[in-house]
Protein backbone atom coordinates (compact mmCIF):
# COMPACT_ATOMS: atom_id res chain seq x y z
CA UNK A 1 0.00 0.00 0.00
CA UNK A 2 2.76 2.66 -0.55
CA UNK A 3 1.90 5.78 1.42
CA UNK A 4 3.93 8.92 1.99
CA UNK A 5 4.72 10.57 5.29
CA UNK A 6 2.69 13.62 4.29
CA UNK A 7 -0.33 11.43 3.56
CA UNK A 8 -0.01 9.70 6.91
CA UNK A 9 0.04 13.04 8.69
CA UNK A 10 -3.34 13.87 7.16
CA UNK A 11 -5.03 10.79 8.64
CA UNK A 12 -6.79 10.68 12.01
CA UNK A 13 -5.42 8.38 14.71
CA UNK A 14 -8.32 5.99 14.18
CA UNK A 15 -7.68 5.89 10.44
CA UNK A 16 -4.01 5.22 11.09
CA UNK A 17 -4.87 2.37 13.41
CA UNK A 18 -7.26 0.88 10.88
CA UNK A 19 -4.58 1.05 8.19
CA UNK A 20 -2.02 -0.40 10.57
CA UNK A 21 -4.15 -3.43 11.34
CA UNK A 22 -4.78 -3.95 7.64
CA UNK A 23 -1.10 -3.60 6.79
CA UNK A 24 -0.16 -6.02 9.56
CA UNK A 25 -2.68 -8.59 8.34
CA UNK A 26 -1.39 -8.29 4.78
CA UNK A 27 2.28 -8.26 5.77
CA UNK A 28 2.58 -4.80 4.17
CA UNK A 29 5.82 -3.06 5.08
CA UNK A 30 3.95 0.27 5.31
CA UNK A 31 3.04 -0.91 8.82
CA UNK A 32 6.40 0.37 10.10
CA UNK A 33 5.79 3.90 8.82
CA UNK A 34 2.26 3.96 10.25
CA UNK A 35 3.55 2.81 13.63
CA UNK A 36 6.17 5.57 13.55
CA UNK A 37 3.53 8.18 12.81
CA UNK A 38 1.34 6.96 15.67
CA UNK A 39 4.29 7.07 18.08
CA UNK A 40 5.38 10.51 16.82
CA UNK A 41 1.86 11.80 17.33
CA UNK A 42 1.65 10.56 20.94
CA UNK A 43 5.16 11.13 22.22
CA UNK A 44 3.94 14.40 23.75
CA UNK A 45 1.41 12.41 25.74
CA UNK A 46 4.23 10.18 27.04
CA UNK A 47 6.25 13.20 28.08
CA UNK A 48 3.35 14.87 29.85
CA UNK A 49 2.52 11.67 31.78
CA UNK A 50 6.20 11.18 32.62
CA UNK A 51 6.22 14.72 34.03
CA UNK A 52 3.44 13.71 36.45
CA UNK A 53 5.88 11.23 37.97
CA UNK A 54 8.65 13.77 38.50
CA UNK A 55 7.93 13.62 42.24
CA UNK A 56 9.51 10.14 42.30
CA UNK A 57 12.92 11.71 41.73
CA UNK A 58 13.65 9.43 38.75
CA UNK A 59 15.45 11.01 35.76
CA UNK A 60 12.84 12.41 33.40
CA UNK A 61 14.25 10.68 30.31
CA UNK A 62 14.11 7.29 32.10
CA UNK A 63 10.44 7.89 32.89
CA UNK A 64 9.86 8.82 29.25
CA UNK A 65 11.60 5.62 28.10
CA UNK A 66 9.36 3.52 30.33
CA UNK A 67 6.29 5.37 29.09
CA UNK A 68 7.44 4.89 25.52
CA UNK A 69 7.21 1.12 26.06
CA UNK A 70 3.62 1.61 27.19
CA UNK A 71 2.87 3.60 24.04
CA UNK A 72 4.36 0.88 21.83
CA UNK A 73 2.21 -1.66 23.68
CA UNK A 74 -0.86 0.47 23.07
CA UNK A 75 -0.11 0.76 19.34
CA UNK A 76 0.40 -3.00 19.14
CA UNK A 77 -2.63 -4.06 21.14
CA UNK A 78 -5.33 -1.42 20.76
CA UNK A 79 -8.59 -2.96 19.68
CA UNK A 80 -10.60 -0.60 17.47
CA UNK A 81 -13.74 -2.63 18.00
CA UNK A 82 -13.91 -1.78 21.70
CA UNK A 83 -14.98 1.78 21.10
CA UNK A 84 -12.54 3.30 23.60
CA UNK A 85 -10.47 6.29 22.55
CA UNK A 86 -6.88 5.36 21.69
CA UNK A 87 -5.52 8.16 23.88
CA UNK A 88 -7.43 6.76 26.88
CA UNK A 89 -6.07 3.30 26.31
CA UNK A 90 -2.55 4.59 25.65
CA UNK A 91 -2.64 6.74 28.80
CA UNK A 92 -3.55 3.67 30.84
CA UNK A 93 -0.67 1.62 29.42
CA UNK A 94 1.86 4.46 29.59
CA UNK A 95 1.02 5.11 33.24
CA UNK A 96 1.17 1.40 33.95
CA UNK A 97 4.65 1.06 32.46
CA UNK A 98 5.96 4.09 34.30
CA UNK A 99 4.53 2.84 37.59
CA UNK A 100 6.04 -0.58 37.08
CA UNK A 101 9.37 1.02 36.26
CA UNK A 102 9.27 3.18 39.37
CA UNK A 103 8.17 0.30 41.56
CA UNK A 104 10.89 -1.98 40.21
CA UNK A 105 13.43 0.73 40.94
CA UNK A 106 12.32 1.42 44.48
CA UNK A 107 10.27 -1.57 45.55
CA UNK A 108 7.58 1.03 45.95
CA UNK A 109 6.87 4.51 44.65
CA UNK A 110 9.15 6.91 46.42
CA UNK A 111 7.14 9.81 47.73
CA UNK A 112 8.98 12.52 49.62
CA UNK A 113 8.06 12.50 53.31
CA UNK A 114 6.61 16.00 53.20
CA UNK A 115 4.32 15.13 50.27
CA UNK A 116 3.32 11.87 51.98
CA UNK A 117 2.41 13.81 55.15
CA UNK A 118 0.45 16.35 53.14
CA UNK A 119 -1.39 13.52 51.32
CA UNK A 120 -2.62 12.28 54.71
CA UNK A 121 -3.76 15.77 55.69
CA UNK A 122 -5.52 16.21 52.35
CA UNK A 123 -7.50 13.00 52.95
CA UNK A 124 -8.55 14.22 56.40
CA UNK A 125 -9.44 17.67 55.08
CA UNK A 126 -11.47 16.13 52.24
CA UNK A 127 -13.51 14.06 54.70
CA UNK A 128 -13.98 17.05 57.02
CA UNK A 129 -15.07 19.37 54.22
CA UNK A 130 -17.32 16.73 52.71
CA UNK A 131 -19.17 16.50 56.03
CA UNK A 132 -19.36 20.26 56.32
CA UNK A 133 -20.35 21.09 52.75
CA UNK A 134 -22.38 18.00 51.90
CA UNK A 135 -20.50 17.63 48.61
CA UNK A 136 -16.96 16.81 47.49
CA UNK A 137 -14.71 19.83 48.12
CA UNK A 138 -12.80 21.52 45.34
CA UNK A 139 -9.03 21.60 45.20
CA UNK A 140 -9.07 25.28 46.17
CA UNK A 141 -11.28 24.61 49.20
CA UNK A 142 -8.94 21.88 50.41
CA UNK A 143 -5.96 24.19 49.92
CA UNK A 144 -7.69 26.97 51.92
CA UNK A 145 -8.61 24.53 54.67
CA UNK A 146 -4.98 23.43 54.98
CA UNK A 147 -3.46 26.86 54.40
CA UNK A 148 -1.34 25.66 51.46
CA UNK A 149 -1.19 26.45 47.75
CA UNK A 150 -3.55 24.53 45.42
CA UNK A 151 -0.47 23.23 43.54
CA UNK A 152 0.71 21.51 46.71
CA UNK A 153 -2.67 19.83 47.12
CA UNK A 154 -2.59 18.72 43.49
CA UNK A 155 0.87 17.23 44.04
CA UNK A 156 -0.30 15.46 47.20
CA UNK A 157 -3.36 14.03 45.43
CA UNK A 158 -1.16 12.66 42.65
CA UNK A 159 1.19 11.13 45.21
CA UNK A 160 -1.75 9.64 47.09
CA UNK A 161 -3.14 8.08 43.94
CA UNK A 162 0.27 6.63 43.08
CA UNK A 163 0.71 5.22 46.59
CA UNK A 164 -2.72 3.62 46.58
CA UNK A 165 -2.26 2.28 43.09
CA UNK A 166 1.07 0.67 43.90
CA UNK A 167 -0.27 -0.83 47.08
CA UNK A 168 -3.30 -2.26 45.28
CA UNK A 169 -1.29 -3.46 42.33
CA UNK A 170 1.29 -5.25 44.48
CA UNK A 171 -1.46 -6.88 46.55
CA UNK A 172 -3.39 -7.95 43.50
CA UNK A 173 -0.38 -9.43 41.74
CA UNK A 174 0.80 -11.22 44.88
CA UNK A 175 -2.48 -12.95 45.55
CA UNK A 176 -4.25 -13.16 42.26
CA UNK A 177 -2.15 -13.18 39.12
CA UNK A 178 -5.23 -13.42 36.94
CA UNK A 179 -7.86 -11.28 38.62
CA UNK A 180 -11.38 -10.87 37.34
CA UNK A 181 -11.82 -7.58 39.19
CA UNK A 182 -9.57 -5.31 37.26
CA UNK A 183 -8.27 -2.72 39.70
CA UNK A 184 -6.03 -1.19 37.08
CA UNK A 185 -9.10 -0.73 34.98
CA UNK A 186 -11.00 0.66 37.93
CA UNK A 187 -8.36 3.22 38.74
CA UNK A 188 -7.68 4.10 35.12
CA UNK A 189 -11.29 4.22 34.01
CA UNK A 190 -12.05 6.65 31.25
CA UNK A 191 -12.17 10.21 32.48
CA UNK A 192 -15.70 11.32 33.20
CA UNK A 193 -17.05 7.79 33.76
CA UNK A 194 -16.60 7.77 37.50
CA UNK A 195 -15.23 10.54 39.71
CA UNK A 196 -11.68 9.85 40.93
CA UNK A 197 -12.88 10.02 44.53
CA UNK A 198 -15.40 7.24 43.86
CA UNK A 199 -12.84 5.07 42.10
CA UNK A 200 -10.37 5.48 44.95
CA UNK A 201 -12.98 4.79 47.61
CA UNK A 202 -14.22 1.66 45.85
CA UNK A 203 -10.68 0.49 45.18
CA UNK A 204 -9.81 0.89 48.85
CA UNK A 205 -12.94 -1.02 49.89
CA UNK A 206 -12.11 -3.82 47.45
CA UNK A 207 -8.54 -3.89 48.70
CA UNK A 208 -9.74 -4.33 52.27
CA UNK A 209 -12.26 -7.01 51.28
CA UNK A 210 -9.55 -8.89 49.34
CA UNK A 211 -7.25 -8.73 52.33
CA UNK A 212 -10.02 -10.06 54.58
CA UNK A 213 -10.66 -12.90 52.13
CA UNK A 214 -6.97 -13.70 52.00
CA UNK A 215 -6.65 -13.85 55.77
CA UNK A 216 -9.75 -15.99 56.25
CA UNK A 217 -8.71 -18.36 53.47
CA UNK A 218 -5.25 -18.72 54.91
CA UNK A 219 -6.69 -19.53 58.30
CA UNK A 220 -9.18 -21.95 56.78
CA UNK A 221 -7.07 -23.78 54.26
CA UNK A 222 -3.52 -23.46 55.39
CA UNK A 223 -3.66 -23.03 59.16
CA UNK A 224 -0.70 -20.71 59.30
CA UNK A 225 1.19 -22.32 56.43
CA UNK A 226 2.02 -20.50 53.23
CA UNK A 227 0.65 -21.62 49.87
CA UNK A 228 4.18 -22.68 48.94
CA UNK A 229 4.46 -24.85 52.07
CA UNK A 230 1.08 -26.45 51.46
CA UNK A 231 2.05 -27.00 47.82
CA UNK A 232 5.27 -28.74 48.81
CA UNK A 233 3.35 -31.10 51.05
CA UNK A 234 0.92 -32.11 48.33
CA UNK A 235 3.25 -31.88 45.34
CA UNK A 236 1.84 -28.75 43.70
CA UNK A 237 3.39 -25.40 42.88
CA UNK A 238 2.30 -22.30 44.83
CA UNK A 239 0.48 -21.13 41.70
CA UNK A 240 -1.39 -24.43 41.42
CA UNK A 241 -2.40 -24.21 45.08
CA UNK A 242 -3.61 -20.68 44.49
CA UNK A 243 -5.67 -21.76 41.46
CA UNK A 244 -7.05 -24.76 43.30
CA UNK A 245 -8.11 -22.55 46.18
CA UNK A 246 -9.85 -20.20 43.74
CA UNK A 247 -11.66 -23.12 42.13
CA UNK A 248 -12.84 -24.39 45.49
CA UNK A 249 -14.13 -20.93 46.37
CA UNK A 250 -15.81 -20.57 42.98
CA UNK A 251 -17.57 -23.88 43.57
CA UNK A 252 -18.70 -22.77 47.01
CA UNK A 253 -20.09 -19.57 45.53
CA UNK A 254 -21.84 -21.46 42.75
CA UNK A 255 -23.30 -23.87 45.27
CA UNK A 256 -24.71 -21.08 47.36
CA UNK A 257 -25.54 -18.35 44.89
CA UNK A 258 -26.35 -20.42 41.82
CA UNK A 259 -25.05 -19.70 38.33
CA UNK A 260 -26.77 -16.38 37.76
CA UNK A 261 -25.71 -14.56 40.90
CA UNK A 262 -22.00 -14.20 40.45
CA UNK A 263 -20.32 -12.64 37.45
CA UNK A 264 -17.12 -14.43 38.30
CA UNK A 265 -16.21 -17.35 36.07
CA UNK A 266 -14.39 -20.41 37.28
CA UNK A 267 -10.66 -20.07 36.90
CA UNK A 268 -8.66 -22.81 35.20
CA UNK A 269 -6.62 -25.11 37.34
CA UNK A 270 -3.14 -26.01 36.23
CA UNK A 271 -2.86 -29.67 37.00
Amino acid sequence: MGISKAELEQLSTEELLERLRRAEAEGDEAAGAIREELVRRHIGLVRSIAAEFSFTGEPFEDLVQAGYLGLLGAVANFDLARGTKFSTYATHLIKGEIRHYVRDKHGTVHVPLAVRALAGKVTEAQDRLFQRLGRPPTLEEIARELGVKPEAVREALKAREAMIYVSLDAERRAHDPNPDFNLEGLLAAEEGDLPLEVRLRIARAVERLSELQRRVIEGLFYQGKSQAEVGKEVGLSQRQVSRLKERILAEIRKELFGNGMSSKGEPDVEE
Partner: protein
Amino acid sequence: MGRDEEAMELLISIAGIMDAVREAVSLLEAGQRDQGLDRLSRAINGVQAQIRTWEGSRDAPLPPRELLEELHSVLEELTAARAVLEAEPTAT
Protein backbone atom coordinates in the same frame (compact mmCIF):
# COMPACT_ATOMS: atom_id res chain seq x y z
CA MET B 1 -21.76 -23.38 63.98
CA GLY B 2 -18.07 -24.29 64.11
CA ARG B 3 -15.27 -21.92 63.33
CA ASP B 4 -14.71 -23.38 59.85
CA GLU B 5 -18.35 -22.91 58.96
CA GLU B 6 -18.19 -19.36 60.28
CA ALA B 7 -15.14 -18.73 58.11
CA MET B 8 -16.91 -20.16 55.09
CA GLU B 9 -19.97 -18.01 55.77
CA LEU B 10 -17.79 -14.92 55.94
CA LEU B 11 -15.99 -15.81 52.71
CA ILE B 12 -19.24 -16.34 50.89
CA SER B 13 -20.63 -13.07 52.21
CA ILE B 14 -17.53 -11.18 51.13
CA ALA B 15 -17.74 -12.80 47.69
CA GLY B 16 -21.36 -11.61 47.45
CA ILE B 17 -20.36 -8.07 48.47
CA MET B 18 -17.52 -8.07 45.94
CA ASP B 19 -19.92 -9.23 43.25
CA ALA B 20 -22.31 -6.40 44.09
CA VAL B 21 -19.46 -3.86 43.99
CA ARG B 22 -18.25 -5.29 40.69
CA GLU B 23 -21.70 -5.05 39.19
CA ALA B 24 -22.09 -1.52 40.57
CA VAL B 25 -18.86 -0.39 38.91
CA SER B 26 -19.83 -1.99 35.58
CA LEU B 27 -23.25 -0.37 35.64
CA LEU B 28 -21.96 3.04 36.70
CA GLU B 29 -19.29 2.97 34.02
CA ALA B 30 -21.96 2.06 31.50
CA GLY B 31 -23.90 5.15 32.56
CA GLN B 32 -26.66 3.17 34.31
CA ARG B 33 -26.57 5.34 37.39
CA ASP B 34 -29.72 4.18 39.19
CA GLN B 35 -28.95 0.49 38.82
CA GLY B 36 -25.31 1.14 39.76
CA LEU B 37 -26.35 2.97 42.92
CA ASP B 38 -28.78 0.16 43.70
CA ARG B 39 -25.98 -2.45 43.50
CA LEU B 40 -23.72 -0.23 45.57
CA SER B 41 -26.46 0.02 48.20
CA ARG B 42 -26.75 -3.76 48.15
CA ALA B 43 -23.05 -4.05 48.82
CA ILE B 44 -23.38 -1.54 51.67
CA ASN B 45 -26.30 -3.51 53.14
CA GLY B 46 -24.18 -6.65 52.88
CA VAL B 47 -21.36 -5.06 54.84
CA GLN B 48 -23.80 -3.75 57.47
CA ALA B 49 -25.25 -7.25 57.81
CA GLN B 50 -21.78 -8.66 58.35
CA ILE B 51 -21.06 -6.08 61.02
CA ARG B 52 -24.26 -7.08 62.83
CA THR B 53 -23.36 -10.77 62.48
CA TRP B 54 -19.89 -10.49 63.97
CA GLU B 55 -20.62 -7.94 66.67
CA GLY B 56 -20.41 -9.83 69.93
CA SER B 57 -19.51 -13.10 68.20
CA ARG B 58 -16.94 -15.30 69.92
CA ASP B 59 -16.42 -17.61 66.95
CA ALA B 60 -15.41 -14.98 64.42
CA PRO B 61 -12.92 -16.38 61.91
CA LEU B 62 -10.56 -13.49 62.61
CA PRO B 63 -9.94 -11.56 65.83
CA PRO B 64 -13.34 -9.83 66.19
CA ARG B 65 -11.98 -6.34 66.79
CA GLU B 66 -9.81 -6.43 63.66
CA LEU B 67 -12.60 -7.95 61.62
CA LEU B 68 -15.09 -5.30 62.70
CA GLU B 69 -12.58 -2.49 62.15
CA GLU B 70 -11.98 -3.71 58.61
CA LEU B 71 -15.69 -4.05 57.91
CA HIS B 72 -16.36 -0.58 59.27
CA SER B 73 -13.59 0.81 57.03
CA VAL B 74 -15.13 -0.92 54.01
CA LEU B 75 -18.53 0.46 54.97
CA GLU B 76 -17.11 3.96 55.30
CA GLU B 77 -15.44 3.82 51.86
CA LEU B 78 -18.51 2.46 50.09
CA THR B 79 -20.86 4.87 51.84
CA ALA B 80 -18.61 7.80 50.95
CA ALA B 81 -18.43 6.61 47.33
CA ARG B 82 -22.22 6.49 47.20
CA ALA B 83 -22.49 9.95 48.76
CA VAL B 84 -20.16 11.38 46.10
CA LEU B 85 -22.24 9.79 43.36
CA GLU B 86 -25.48 11.02 44.86
CA ALA B 87 -24.07 14.54 45.22
CA GLU B 88 -23.02 14.58 41.56
CA PRO B 89 -26.09 13.49 39.59
CA THR B 90 -24.39 14.02 36.24
CA ALA B 91 -21.09 12.35 37.17
CA THR B 92 -21.84 9.09 35.44
